[in-house]
């Protein structure tokens, strides 16, 4: 690590640029040949827009091939006060990317004295996903889902990414990861414009349940251990992780409703 007080002055508010100038070894990933051994993968994450902002949720399972690597991994993180990021894909590089992204947003805010626009944050994350392309080519794909409250437009917005760093905005909802397709199917039926925050939590919980129902790599509510999907909302009031007891209740409501449907048959 070089001393940021020495050498030519850096004219950039970007933390990635600061790392490149003073601690490049923290950024560098040397391309290697051969195949990467099995590593933990995060599976399903989803986001929906609602009247006051956005809600984002993720199941708690990480898989390593056919084995369950972790039962209580968290995949939804605050990116800053007004945005959230959820990860699907290779868990190691994904969580590292989130850490870099969080630092990048905070660094920009401190250097400049005001935060990046939501658009700027979304683009920055796209650049990080693109930077991961060499690793993605070896199987370590990281596909984040990003959402936030746009304080200028006064609305929630959702962004998804492809492996090249392509950034696509979703007007209503999106889900990604191995169970993403199933979650999207569920969201398509349950999501309505102008739902409120509580409904958004229920809709996400149900979509994650449906994903777990169809996808072996997605974990459903674990009533035995008390592990439930994590949901957070972002509104004009900021990032808010729904408390565990509320998540438990929301998960139990979905389970109870499904049990009733089965019993009626």
């Amino acid at each position: 690590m070089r001393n940021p007080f020495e050498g030519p002055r850096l004219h950039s508010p970007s933390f990635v640029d600061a790392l490149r100038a003073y601690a490049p070894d923290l950024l560098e990933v040397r391309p290697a040949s051969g195949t990467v051994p099995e590593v933990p993968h995060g599976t399903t994450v989803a986001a929906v827009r609602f009247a006051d902002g956005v809600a984002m949720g993720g199941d708690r399972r990480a898989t390593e091939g056919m084995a369950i690597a972790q039962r209580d991994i968290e995949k939804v993180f605050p990116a800053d006060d007004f945005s959230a990021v959820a990860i699907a894909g290779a868990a190691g590089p994904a969580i590292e990317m989130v850490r870099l992204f969080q630092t990048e947003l905070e660094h920009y805010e401190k250097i400049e004295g005001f935060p990046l626009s939501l658009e700027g944050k979304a683009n920055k994350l796209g650049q990080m996903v693109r930077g991961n392309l060499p690793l993605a080519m070896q199987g370590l794909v990281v596909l984040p889902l990003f959402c936030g409250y746009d304080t200028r437009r006064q609305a929630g917005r959702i962004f998804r990414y492809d492996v090249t760093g392509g950034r696509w905005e979703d007007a209503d909802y999106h889900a990604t990861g191995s169970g993403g397709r199933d979650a999207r199917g569920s969201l398509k039926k349950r999501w309505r414009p102008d739902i409120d925050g509580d409904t958004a939590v229920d809709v996400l919980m149900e979509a994650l349940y449906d994903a777990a129902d169809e996808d072996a790599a997605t974990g459903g509510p674990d009533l035995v251990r008390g592990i439930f999907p994590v949901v957070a909302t972002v509104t004009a009031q900021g990032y808010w992780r729904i408390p565990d007891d509320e998540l438990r209740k929301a998960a139990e409501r979905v389970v109870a409703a499904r049990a009733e449907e089965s019993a009626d048959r």
Partner: protein
Amino acid sequence: MSVPFYVPPEQLTREKAEFARKGIARGRPLIVLEFAGGILFVAENPSTHLHKVAELYDRIAFCAVGRFSEFENLRQAGVRLADIRGYAYGREDVTSRSIANAYSQTLGQIFVQEFKPYEVELCVAEVGIDGAPNAMYHIVFDGNVFDRKGFLAMGGQSDELNTELQRGYDENMELDAALQLAMRVLRQAAPAGETGARLEVAVLERDRPRRSFRRLSQEDVQSRAGEPAS
């Protein structure tokens, strides 16, 4: 190559110090105060955009008086140092002591090697949690570091300000009382005929999780000071 005249180091140091002191005294003053719930920063600052007080890290803030271009450069380097450390190691491993040390080294080197010393004085303050005490490092233009306790005034007629602060200070003050003290002391020291310079006010709040730095709006300052909003 021409050989410069020999100037004895004592004289050189003295003259550089005098130059820096004069430059700093010309600027508007700033007060740092420990209060019951954290650390308060009050600076006379006519600008709403160019800050004299700023966040460095979760529990650490930076404030400075003197030449803006010089301390702004130092502030940004401090943010970079803190963020790189926190990213490379952990958030708890970023300490005010190591940042103050970096400032001291830099200012010391500039004072000795450069033709013109920096006309700045800085304070790096850290609010303690879990019973740990606060830290206030006062770093002056030649790289000297002073470990302060309770309160500190920099810039302007700082000696007089410190004397006044000593008279009214109590370490168990609440935020409002601390703010009122700082404002009173600054007002007393203002040159005759000059009243109501715009104040930049910020706090490091002990009970605020993670990023404890917060700026106080002008309205908030006025209501806490018990003054009608203008």
